């Protein structure tokens, strides 16, 4: 890491006190409805230490800080940044036994540890719409079907969508986008704006996750929101944690990594983060999650494949929607 200034180079001391584990997490993690407070409570009970969340932009901040970061662990990364993150050399192997994973795909990464997952899906309101039975059916649906999606350049779910289309349609991705274009009401910066438009009735379907209906079932007792399941398959979205190589609390950090796949953590994360636990048998999922419609086919690009296809997939999206 190049030091930006001479003074920066002189400032090497980390500020974490001996008993504190510093965890960088996305902002939503630490709100009172996010999983952060529960994680903190559970982990502090077993480690006799202080867990401190520092929420915010994960990777940009880490990259700016370089190896002088005070983070010991990072939680909430997505597969779209793992390649950059891995190349930065900032992370150390997690050293956790992966045999307990219950992901729908095989996962052998020794640096990035999954803690929950979901799939991209179009969520709709059953009282307003009969869902198309397949991705093809969606493309060929009448143009008055109204869909909101997210921008692949500013949102992780938006990026997953273009990769999804890429993996289903390959070279025909642009044509697929052209067929979809008239149905797309608009493209938003992030997931929140899209979902807001959907709940306001501005759109019939929204790009979200297969797990979104679980929130409505569990928190609102509302079973009218469903994810349309397509036989072509759904793109896999996983959230990851990783240990920072320069940590000054290696044991605590390791303890936290082990904690992630523990039963305590896994049985809380479903309703904590509205996602499917990465290492928990379906029979132990909360009831609302057991009711979810989940795809049989799961699509996923390795980070190298995704990196190679990303620009092409975004370009197909842009070209298809700019017609």
């Amino acid at each position: 890491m190049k030091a930006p200034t001479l003074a920066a180079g002189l400032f090497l001391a980390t500020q974490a006190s001996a008993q504190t584990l510093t965890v960088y997490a996305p902002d939503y993690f630490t709100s009172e409805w996010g999983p952060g407070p529960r994680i903190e409570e559970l982990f502090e009970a077993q480690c006799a230490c202080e867990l401190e969340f520092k929420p915010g932009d994960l990777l940009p901040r880490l990259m700016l800080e370089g190896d002088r970061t005070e983070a010991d662990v990072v939680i909430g990364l997505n597969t779209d940044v793992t390649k950059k993150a891995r190349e930065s050399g900032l992370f150390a192997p997690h050293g956790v036994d992966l045999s307990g994973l219950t992901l729908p795909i095989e996962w052998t990464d020794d640096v990035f540890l999954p803690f929950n997952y979901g799939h991209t899906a179009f969520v709709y309101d059953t009282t307003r719409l009969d869902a198309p039975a397949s991705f093809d059916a969606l493309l060929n649906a009448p143009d008055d079907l109204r869909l909101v999606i997210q921008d692949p350049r500013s949102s992780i779910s938006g990026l997953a969508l273009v990769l999804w289309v890429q993996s289903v349609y390959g070279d025909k991705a642009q044509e697929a986008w052209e067929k979809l274009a008239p149905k797309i009401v608009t493209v938003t910066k992030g997931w929140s704006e899209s979902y807001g438009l959907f709940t306001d009735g501005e759109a019939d379907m929204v790009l979200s996750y297969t797990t979104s209906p679980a929130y409505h079932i569990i928190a609102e007792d509302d079973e009218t929101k469903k994810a349309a399941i397509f036989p072509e398959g759904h793109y896999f979205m996983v959230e990851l944690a990783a240990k920072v190589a320069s940590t000054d609390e290696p044991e605590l950090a390791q303890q936290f990594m082990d904690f992630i796949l523990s039963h305590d953590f896994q049985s809380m994360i479903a309703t904590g983060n509205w996602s499917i636990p990465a290492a928990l048998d379906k029979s132990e999922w909360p009831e609302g999650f057991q009711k979810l419609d989940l795809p049989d086919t799961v699509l996923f690009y390795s980070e190298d494949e995704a990196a190679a296809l990303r620009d092409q997939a975004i370009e197909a999206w842009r070209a298809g929607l700019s017609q």
Partner: protein
Amino acid sequence: MARRSFAIIAGLALAACTLGPILAVLVRAGGFGQISAADWQAVRFTLVQAALSAGFSVACGWPVARALARRRFPGRGLLVTLMGAPFILPVIVAVMGLIAVFGQNGLVNAGLGALGLPKLDIYGLHGVVLAHVFFNLPLATRMMLQAELAIPSERFRLAASLGLTPRAYFRLIEWPLILRIAPGAFAVIFVICLTSFAVALTLGGGPRATTVELAIFQAMRFEFDLGRAAMLSLIQLALALSAGLVALKLSRWDGFGLGRGRAVARWDGRGRLGRSIDGLAVMLAAAFLLVPLGAVIWKGLPGLALLGSDTARAALHSLMVALGSTALCLAWALPLATRRGELWALSAIALSPLVLGAGLFLLLRPWVNPLDWALPVTGLVNALMALPFALRILRPEAEAVTRDFGRLRATLRLTSWAWFRLVWLPRLRRPLGFAGGLTAALAMGDLGVIALFADPDRVTLPLQVYRLMGAYRMEAAAGAALLLLMCSLALFWLFDRGGRVGADV
């Protein structure tokens, strides 16, 4: 001499806060990045939408300002305050309000549907412009209203006694005023719209509506290409400064005489035509601005009950930030209330908050833990972002004070401090109140650079709105948005009112 050194200090601080972060990012990146063809396309779209938005805001703001200046009707003061609200709304809330009115299931389409007319589609360039006019019409109106109120009453009496035709009246009185105010108003709004991102994207309807700020976001967050981000933000800055230069060049800043500052009786526009034009302008503007606000309130009311103590805490943090930003911004603005100062300050709003945040982060990090500085940095950045607005409001009046009383000051041998305390501040009370209210409200609603500096214990209210939405709690988010709206409006009202009470001497 003292004033001069204050001006130099303030100017240096401004340069350090705008260019410093970009330089820091550039140094960290090791040079500039590559700009793609798509980026240039984004530049073009950005320019087109910003120019259209600024043009419509100013063109529509004029009749409204004139009507408000020459009419007295019950509720006028309240209307003026309320109409300022869209400008200080957080983007996401405002977009929701607009969609509730102009969207697929909105009021307008419900009306059109009832009449059997085809539906209106808000998404596209026109949607972007509509939203930007919604945000900025209040600003344009207020700036021009302020100028209208500064016209000395003698001028109206003269015009009335000459029996000027409406045409001559326009040419002799209104057109010079438009020439004086409109270019500056246009430039400010143009620059605001340059950095638009979420609005442009959401209402633009797709990738055609890509702005430079989106490209910066992509470079920062996804590609971590700091060089490209810095390059793009310099392009943005250059566009803003050019706009500012052109505006300064075009506008005529000749003396407009000694205004007494009190409400002025006017004799123009008393005919039936004038009255109906004014009535129409006020009613249309009020409907355009207030109905979406009403939708925000309507949607937010049930959510208010769902808000917990941490939302209250977030509101408190935001209030602290807002008050700090206001004090800093006004202290910063007073010595910079000159042409050059205003031009430089214009660059502050054109600065990408993302690049600014990253740069400040890099600058602060060797010395302190940036996270401990989340609120002060947010306060500083908000003050910086509000500085151009404060100057736009203050400068003409500051110049008028100097012009009207500068010679008296000299002949009395007033010291700088006496001049500042006894003349400058009291004479500028009204614009200071307005600028302070605007700054406070803007700081209240701004998400700014907080993303890099987020601190779980010091969440601000706008961030809380996003958090609630991210946790599927759309109803509570609407409630928090309403709370935010109320806080912003209350701050604005208090400052603006404070500036006006007893100032009509």
